[in-house]
């Protein structure tokens, strides 16, 4: 189970609205390489992890991704909040406004709703961990694209933090894969 902590994992204090950037960042909320997909992927896969280390790492990274989902949602909210509909129209984000107003909704930047088809969960831990390694690289690449779209330090800072976390997660999943392979080797599964 989980308890809520009344704080984000890293500070989000955006002073200047930027609705176009909000829509770009939205893909990390409900898009294919986003934090919701990451969290559900790891929290679902943890049930079929074979060792104590790999159960723990999937559980704990899946939990951290929820904290990242909250950071991304806070960024989208702060970048969109209180911007007038006229301004949104000028910036070409009026179609998003027509569907959701200025709310945070789990979709990608084109408004395509979140789907569990973005993730897989199989009984085979080697297959799962290889997917996880790729997922972390795709999330890192997405944060690098997003970093090229803004020069606001209030936005760059948390995006850099999130990119760095994907690199750390990739590292931990690599260790998890090695642990699974060593354990399976000892049990002579193949």
């Amino acid at each position: 189970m989980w308890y809520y902590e009344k704080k984000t994992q890293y500070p989000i204090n955006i002073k200047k609205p930027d609705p176009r950037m909000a829509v770009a960042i939205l893909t990390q909320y409900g898009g294919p390489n986003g934090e919701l997909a990451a969290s559900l992927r790891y929290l679902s896969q943890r049930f079929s992890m074979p060792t104590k280390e790999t159960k723990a790492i999937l559980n704990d990274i899946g939990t951290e991704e929820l904290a990242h989902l909250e950071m991304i949602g806070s960024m989208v909210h702060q970048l969109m909040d209180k911007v007038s509909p006229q301004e949104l129209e000028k910036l070409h984000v009026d179609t998003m406004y027509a569907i959701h107003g200025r709310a945070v909704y789990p979709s990608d930047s084109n408004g395509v709703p979140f789907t569990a088809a973005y993730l897989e969960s199989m009984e085979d831990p080697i297959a799962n961990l290889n997917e996880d390694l790729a997922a972390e690289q795709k999330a890192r690449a997405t944060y690098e694209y997003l970093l090229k779209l803004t020069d606001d330090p209030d936005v760059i800072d948390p995006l850099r933090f999130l990119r760095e976390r994907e690199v750390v997660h990739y590292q931990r999943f690599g260790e998890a894969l090695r642990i699974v392979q060593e354990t399976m080797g000892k049990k002579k599964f193949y």
Partner: protein
Amino acid sequence: MDEQTTLLEQIMAYDFALYDLQLFLDTHPSDENALRDYKMALEQSENLRKQFQSKYGPLNARYLPNTTCWQWINDPWPWDYKGGMNNVVL
């Protein structure tokens, strides 16, 4: 930055260090250095948390201040900050 935000950001920094160490320890459970760092950061975080909660209210609903009303619902919520807690726009 106001004192409330400074204190909160210190707690966030220690809690982040703790979480990063937690992931490391998950795949390196016998690393004594990491375990020692975890213990140190945990003590710091808990001291700062006590200070913060007695002054500014709960970070977690399990902290119950000695008051007659439920303080958990009080603003600000984490997504409300815009340049520090004193600049909360509601």
